[in-house]
């Protein structure tokens, strides 16, 4: 594997949150939100990070940017100027230089924009902080960015409340785009949006990537959205990556029982395909008190004795297909069956 085109390498990343109880606020336990994950992102590619709520996918994204200080592990970022740098060890000054190249888009477009700043100020702020532009140059650049994401530049002087959810998410994208980053972490950017708006924002993200060639770490829980946008997908379960592969591989021939269960749980948008596959029983275990061995074994229908004792490491079974399961090579699991292609045509417009 060549490392030149490698943009981000995450090795053994951990983020544990202490649980404090009692009057003395003593640490009585640890929530292992992210518990040793490994993955890499190449330049210009999209890695989808998918999992159920509480699996640590957002925490992982934030720990990479050091919005949460990681507990352990390395995050090697290939900066276009500084070269390969371990983000977790970088000092303040280095971080300042790294940040323009790694940006984030948040889930909730209603709370991630400062209501007291105008849209122009919000999008221009990164440019000011990094001393990239000022005065008319700044406002020209902001106007350009807004145009890029489909917001009319005249709206620069308005405040976030005047915009709809989809438009606000576009503003958030413009802000992330301002410094021409090589990596954008998209933390569930379309989860809060209606389907028709969701499609607009996904298309926008696709177009921007084609134009500027940045890489995305796309965090989400909607498997159809993740499939649409990602080149490769990593599946997380209780703070651990259980499977990672090229999108088609992962969806059509999953190798981890959890991935299989997740794929089979999606309600299929076709009334002629009403199947009732075997459902996953029970709930996701708490990351403060996970089960022994493989975290998935209490819910896994293929579990054997070894699964409750030993935690399987994430291993490459060939062609960049990583699986953390003792029986990855033996199990034959069912993936997604492609839905029949329903072609819908708009009624023809007629004249009066």
């Amino acid at each position: 594997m060549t490392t030149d085109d490698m943009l981000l390498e995450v090795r053994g990343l951990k983020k544990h949150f202490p649980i404090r109880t009692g009057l003395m606020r003593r640490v009585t336990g640890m929530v292992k939100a992210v518990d040793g994950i490994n993955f890499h992102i190449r330049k210009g590619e999209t890695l989808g990070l998918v999992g159920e709520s509480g699996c640590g996918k957002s925490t992982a994204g934030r720990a990479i940017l050091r919005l949460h200080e990681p507990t352990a592990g390395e995050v090697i970022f290939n900066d276009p100027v500084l070269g390969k740098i371990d983000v977790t060890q970088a000092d303040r000054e280095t971080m300042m230089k790294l940040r323009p190249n790694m940006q984030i888009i948040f889930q909730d477009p209603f709370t991630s924009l400062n209501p007291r700043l105008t849209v122009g100020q919000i999008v221009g702020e990164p440019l000011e902080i990094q001393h990239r532009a000022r005065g008319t140059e700044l406002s020209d650049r902001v106007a350009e960015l807004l145009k890029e994401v489909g917001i009319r530049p005249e709206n620069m002087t308005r405040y976030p409340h005047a915009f709809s959810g989809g438009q606000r998410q576009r503003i958030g994208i413009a802000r992330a785009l301002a410094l021409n980053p090589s990596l954008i972490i998209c933390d569930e950017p379309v989860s809060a949006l209606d389907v028709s708006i969701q499609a607009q924002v996904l298309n926008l993200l696709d177009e921007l990537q084609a134009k500027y060639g940045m890489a995305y770490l796309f965090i989400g829980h909607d498997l159809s959205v993740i499939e649409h946008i990602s080149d490769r997908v990593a599946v997380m379960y209780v703070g651990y990556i259980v499977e990672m592969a090229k999108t088609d591989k992962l969806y059509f021939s999953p190798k981890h029982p959890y991935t299989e269960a997740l794929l089979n749980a999606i309600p299929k948008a076709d009334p002629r395909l009403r199947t009732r596959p075997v459902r996953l029983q029970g709930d996701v275990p708490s990351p403060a008190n996970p089960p022994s061995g493989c975290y998935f074994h209490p819910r896994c229908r293929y579990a054997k004795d070894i699964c409750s004792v030993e935690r399987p490491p994430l291993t490459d079974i060939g062609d960049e297909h990583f699986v953390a399961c003792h029986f990855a090579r033996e199990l034959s699991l069912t993936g997604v069956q492609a839905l029949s292609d329903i072609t819908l045509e708009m009624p023809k417009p007629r004249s009066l």
Partner: protein
Amino acid sequence: MTTQATSINLTSHDDVVRVEDLKVNFYTQLGVVNALNGVSFNIPRGRVLGIVGESGCGKSITGLSIMQLVVAAGRTEAGRIMFREFAGQEPPINILEYGKNSPEMRKIRGNNISMIFQEPMSSLNPCYTVGNQIEEAILLHQTDDKSEASKRAVEVLTKVGMPNPDRIAASFPHELSGGMRQRAMIAMALSCNPTLLIADEPTTALDVTTEAQILDLMRGLQSEIGTSIMFITHNMGVVAQMCDEVAVMYMGRVVERATVDDIFYEPRHPYTISLLQSIPRLGRSKGRLSSIEGSVPDPYSTTPGCSFHPRCPVAIKGLCDTIVPEETIVDAAKGHTVRCHLNS
């Protein structure tokens, strides 16, 4: 279960609920919001009707109107909601004739018609055990015997697949996971064997694996008890898996009403078509998604003509922007109707 689309007569006398030309306005400090602009649809007995639409289209308000739970700012301006508790009941009851707090309405609410809400945590009372909350409905409507009520509460918890119903009945909502809470909500709604169950986005707050469990449960219970369900959702996948019939709503109107098969395979309204085209489809979702231009209009403004015309790719100038299309029958046998000038 009645998943096969059997022919439905448009003038069927066996509708559990028939909503006729319902208009609800909200009077706020910023102006009047026309939440419902004449909503009409029927829920055939023993079937699952899906109400689909984007946020703000009025789907929740429709559900709340049937329960008479719309907040004080909302006023019902016109329309009727005809309810038949049992098949062939003549004449049907117009729910809207009862006052919100009248004894008649209280007798219907939670007993004949019950509702499940989206957020199970905020719809359960944190101060009472799950068992107490289920018993409350049973004591109010079914029996005065407290020990009988608690026995029934445990029974209904067993029915919704709770692993340890006695322990769950004694638990407080915060002790349960999201999926468990939603099961408790369903148990509560089903405790009095309602004729109609209104489910307002019951799985939106849940993860896919939990969602699948809850949908399976609801389908199982529906075929077992035969309750009619009005299923409000924005997820087309859930619609395809759960519903027998679908009403698509946009800006406070039902724009298309058909069997679930017709909605997915032969949709007629440009909005339904755009909605289906904009969802990423599993297993074949590369390339550009077709999206609907613009966004749902500001609720305080009123759109003349067809409310979808500003976003419609095939709108006819001079017609769609001036005249509101009437509901037209596409296929009478299957009960397929659409509100669009292109189909009239």
